[in-house]
């Protein structure tokens, strides 16, 4: 994995429904490696790349989502504070957070409730989302309106950083890591003619991928994602879901889809055969774009490959470079064996 690409992708803005900037970055990254690039009506970027062996007779799709969790400004108060909706983030992850608003990247701070206003009883309770606001330094509504922030987006103000022993912390790793893996695959080249989809609006209900399903009509899809790793303080056993540093995650099921059982087993076999560290998930929750691909447009066979990531949907997601490299390697190995995967042959 070229981590400069990942850094560029993570630092770009692309809240669900406001993906223009990230799509521009992606277009620039794949322009010289794709045989065609187009955008569908809802904003998905769909690229086509010819394979070294031409077509295998099946429509192959590699997918990742380009949008990130964030905020939408829905109201400006008289005193210049902004009210917002959080897209895909729980309150505990953003109270007191630093954010950047809009293309202008206006710095802002999400409030917390002042301590003297929190009763003894309330100290143990969760903060309510409607008690929070966003302050960008505007003195009144007029000043805020002049900045053009109404109906604009906001993202966490946290950029890509290496830290510790081969670890990364950044916003938007979900799913810029998947996008980076797809970009790497395009640059490396594929064996068979393939589509690459960078989807919009995954975080607000797998919406972009539904359109991609009908646009591409794939026979098989490899969906690359980030998935929650619960290997943190106080969590033991099955509740840890998967482990950072444990390798690429190949899930068998989540809340939105059952990954094709035979392909799940074969993908794990491919990983082991190629010496790629691999694990699966012990908690069935959440959902990915695979949910769209399994059921829309008549459905298709689906494989999932994911980066185990701590603190999903927060200001700083944490992952291990070794896992990201494992995902990239596994994606490449799956791509090389895709025809055998579809043909039912033993790996």
């Amino acid at each position: 994995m070229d981590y400069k690409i990942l850094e560029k992708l993570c630092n770009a803005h692309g809240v669900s429904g406001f993906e223009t900037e990230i799509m521009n970055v992606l277009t620039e990254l794949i322009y010289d490696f794709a045989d065609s690039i187009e955008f569908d009506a809802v904003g998905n970027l769909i690229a086509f790349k010819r394979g070294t062996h031409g077509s295998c007779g099946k429509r192959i799709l590699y997918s990742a989502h380009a949008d990130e969790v964030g905020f939408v400004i829905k109201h400006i108060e008289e005193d210049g504070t902004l009210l917002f909706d959080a897209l895909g983030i729980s309150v505990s992850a953003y109270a007191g957070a630093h954010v950047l608003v809009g293309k202008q990247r206006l710095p802002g701070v999400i409030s917390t409730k002042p301590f003297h206003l929190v009763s003894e009883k309330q100290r143990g309770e969760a903060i309510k989302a409607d008690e929070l606001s966003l302050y960008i330094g505007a003195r009144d509504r007029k000043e805020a309106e002049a900045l053009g922030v109404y109906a604009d987006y906001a993202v966490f103000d946290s950029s890509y950083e290496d830290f510790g022993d081969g670890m990364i912390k950044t916003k938007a790793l979900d799913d810029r890591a998947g996008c980076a893996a797809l970009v790497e695959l395009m640059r490396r080249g594929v064996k068979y003619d393939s589509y690459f989809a960078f989807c919009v609006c995954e975080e607000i209900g797998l919406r972009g991928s539904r359109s991609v399903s009908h646009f591409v009509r794939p026979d098989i899809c490899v969906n690359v994602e980030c998935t929650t790793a619960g290997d943190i303080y106080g969590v033991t056993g099955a509740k840890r879901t998967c482990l950072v540093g444990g390798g690429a995650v190949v899930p068998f099921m989540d809340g939105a889809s059952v990954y094709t059982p035979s392909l799940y087993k074969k993908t794990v076999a491919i990983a082991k055969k190629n010496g790629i560290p691999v694990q699966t998930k012990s908690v069935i929750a959440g959902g990915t774009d695979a949910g769209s691909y399994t059921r829309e447009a008549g459905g298709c066979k689906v494989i999932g490959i994911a980066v185990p990531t701590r603190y999903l949907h927060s200001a700083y997601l944490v992952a291990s470079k070794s896992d990201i490299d494992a995902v990239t390697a596994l994606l490449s190995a799956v791509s090389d064996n895709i025809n055998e995967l579809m043909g039912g042959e033993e790996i």
Partner: protein
Amino acid sequence: MKNIYGQLYGINTVSGSNGKAEDFIKEKLSDFCDEIFSDSMGNVYALKKGIGEQPRRKIALVCPFCTQGFITRYIDCDGKILLRYIGEPPYAQLCGMRAVTENGVGGVINCINDEPEDAGADDFYLDIGAISADEVSVLQGEFVSLEDAPELLGNNRLKLGALGRKAVSKVLFDIAFCCGTYNFDLYFIFIAQHLLSARGEICAAYTVRPDTVIALDLLRVNDRQNIADPLLAVRDSGAVSSYVLRQELCCAAESIGVTAECYAEFDKKAPSIMNAFAAYGAECACVGIPAESDGKELYCDVRAISGAAATVCSYLIFEDEKEVDKNDK
């Protein structure tokens, strides 16, 4: 049990497992249908092509062909195989039931919770007698099916056991074995992943785009005296059935001496068979097999299954005559 209920029970079709359904259906229906194929979801389609010129009307007979069961999600250090239940509540009854993995490893279902009544879908494990993870050869992602065979009791009563909704598929087999060739294409659709939010129906609706859909389903009824006759469901959790189609089915039933009453109650939590097809513009109705519970087990009457098959066959004959009249004009 060598009859069809026993055979249906014998195939592992836990919702999501993409099991051996296609092989079984091919074995049963290849002599009666022109084409049998499946999709990536696991749905199996058996097509009886119509006569006459294209485009021909498409009528689809649809029923769920998946069962409740489990998927293995984690092997605990003390040998417990932690499971996710795939099916409908209530869950408490699952404790103590025997189950078997895809690779034939058998065990007993237990609950992690001290209070099984409060159990959720993730609160079950399979006890195979192992005391450490090293002794367990079951893999994460492996499906586990319940070992609870159906039983034909006296007075035409069928204890459904783990067979569940799949028992209703006998209606489709009965129809396929005896129906003729019509002036429309007739699809028999065996739905996979019905228990997982009716995903199979979404795929099937897109693949076939039928004009008319007759869904076959179990209808849980409370305190109903007569469960020997099929019912015509007015609605399910996702769609309202077509009034006209319901009336046509009612007349078709009457013409052969079967009583098929309308039934207005429905289970809000049960996935909808009709919804996906209705969304693609199909005219839909649901012929229900009434099933009653004694608190632990679910029972139906095999006469209702035969009655449903006869009703639908009668309807198909009427529809064929209409198509002939239309073509003559």
